[in-house]
């Protein structure tokens, strides 16, 4: 613990199409230590997935522009050559995609799909060794190794997601990016998958970036949390920093918590955030959240972003945040 694995500094990503420029990610700073689980929380269009794709060098080549720095194990990932990136992708950084139903190739056996990753990164392994490793991986994710020759359609949604996880952990990656891994699953299956992922994370010691919109999963699984809105990180800190209601919070974070129906108490109405999240092509001036913010002031509407106020590990990007408690 404590050793820096990934450091993102002032990362901005823009997508350009014919006329529209989408500022998907704006001046993001993030760091992940070895063995740490970071929760990246935000709504659709907040830039979570774009951030993740930039770590894997999977952004569209001709329509995206990337600025800033991503340092992974001391190596600069921004501007890295595709040839070098291939050695990292799948081996050191791997990703679990959101939708297991569409992420697996329907015409290949799952064993082959898991084996592919191993084959690419371990040229010296022969087929028998690979098959043995695939069997081990299937066991690790709770699937009977005898199903190695089954096709994806023979698996249920939860099982497919387990196969995806097996592919992602095939080369013991240092960093695992899980993009909404349980959104498509039922609650009881979600609980199984989260429990399994937590077990694997501890067993393998990988760092995880968990992208989600479910604060319940974050509370269960993560060490650190970063909350994204409009391509920016509006609040970040340890789990305690974010979930302690007595502390100062960004109004967006408060809104997120107010939007969740509480299973333990009965309330008449939720307290949602008014309005809609802005499209990344039409982000407002000043604080990106001000049009929806119940506490917005004149100062929020103009000029630059509000300053980031830090209290130890807890950072808030808001004019209302105060130093100290």
């Amino acid at each position: 613990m404590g050793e820096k694995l990934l450091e993102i500094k002032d990362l901005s990503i823009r997508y350009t199409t014919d006329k529209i420029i989408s500022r998907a990610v704006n001046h993001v700073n993030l760091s992940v230590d070895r063995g740490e689980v970071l929760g990246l929380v935000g709504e659709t269009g907040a830039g979570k997935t774009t951030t993740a794709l930039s770590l894997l060098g999977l952004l569209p080549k001709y329509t995206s522009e990337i600025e800033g720095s991503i340092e992974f194990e001391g190596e600069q990932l921004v501007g890295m050559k595709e040839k070098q990136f291939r050695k990292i992708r799948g081996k050191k950084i791997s990703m679990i995609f959101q939708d297991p139903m569409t992420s697996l190739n329907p015409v290949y056996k799952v064993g082959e799909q898991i084996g592919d990753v191993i084959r690419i990164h371990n040229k010296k392994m022969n087929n028998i060794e690979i098959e043995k490793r695939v069997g081990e991986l299937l066991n690790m994710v709770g699937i009977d190794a005898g199903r190695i020759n089954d096709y994806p359609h023979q698996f249920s949604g939860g099982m497919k997601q387990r196969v995806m996880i097996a592919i992602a952990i095939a080369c013991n990656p240092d960093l695992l990016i899980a993009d909404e891994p349980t959104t498509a699953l039922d609650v009881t299956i979600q609980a199984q998958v989260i429990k399994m992922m937590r077990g694997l994370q501890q067993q393998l010691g990988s760092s995880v970036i968990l992208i989600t919109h479910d604060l319940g999963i974050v509370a269960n699984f993560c060490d650190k949390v970063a909350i994204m809105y409009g391509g920016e990180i509006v609040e970040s800190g340890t789990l305690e920093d974010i979930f302690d209601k007595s502390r100062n919070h960004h109004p967006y974070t408060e809104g997120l918590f107010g939007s969740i129906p509480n299973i333990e108490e009965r309330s008449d109405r939720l307290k949602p955030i008014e309005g809609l999240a802005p499209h990344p092509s039409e982000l407002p001036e000043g604080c990106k959240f001000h049009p929806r913010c119940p506490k917005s002031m004149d100062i929020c509407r103009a000029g630059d972003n509000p300053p980031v106020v830090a209290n130890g590990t807890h950072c808030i990007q808001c004019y209302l945040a105060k130093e100290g408690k």
Partner: protein
Amino acid sequence: MSEEILLECKNLKKYFNTPRGTLHAVDDVSFKLEKGKTLGVVGESGCGKSTLGRTILKALDPTGGKIIFEGKDITDMKKREFTKYRKDMQLIFQDPFASLDPKMSVYQIIEEPLKIFKVFKTKKETEDRVIELMKTVGLDERYVNTYPHELDGGRRQRIGIARALALNPKFIICDEPVSALDVSIQAQVLNLMMDLKDKRGLTYIFITHDLSVVKHISDDILVLYLGKMVEKTDSDTLFAKPLHPYTKALLSAVPIPDISYKGKEAEVVKGEVTSPIDPPEGCRFAARCPRATEKCFAKTPDFYEAEPNHFVACHLYE
């Protein structure tokens, strides 16, 4: 029982014939729904929630049982006669990506029911109504001529809701209406639906797999498992004192956004939903149930009143 019953289902069944046998999608479901109340129907994928909704609306023909709407048996009603009731019963679909015609603009989609039922005589009136509906559901007017593929999931679902509201129905079946939406938008939509309910006296059947949502919006909750009713009671009781092991498992699987729960291993139920094709005699949850006994595999439990107004189908409480 002085309240007016809007909808009643009696032993409703829907089976599908498949090459591998008969699929029991909805098996013996009975309930009464009072006017202005909300019934939450909870269960995992494949438990027959959506089929139940569709059967009630007669989008599917029931295999057995009765559907009584406003005191009238609509089970075997002819299509022509049923049209009258169709206006009062609407459905909000689950997947806003698949349920909207990609070749129709937002305006056309919302306008369609108004056109079919010839609600307005002039184009102006129809236009005003469409705009009003868009405002009601929080859709910006500038989207009126866009197509569904240009909009995100949240906005698409609002179109679906606007369309369902177009004919001022009495009763709406909401089939996972918020499961595809972001939390802040989800809360807006839920509030909107509750406001509409209060304002227009709507009655809902709210189908969902999200227990925190169902608790928030429902008066009564019905838990389904593989087409069978498992537990039914009012929403407070269900959350405070669940009886059936499946309900308990469902409740403990919900991740709670509070760090005091971190590290506490929730009781994770093993296995996955078994096949609903030709299910054997016995409790359908028995294979996954942590408290299953031999009796559970041998005999199907009845759905009985274990406590006042608290129905359960489990041998444990007999």
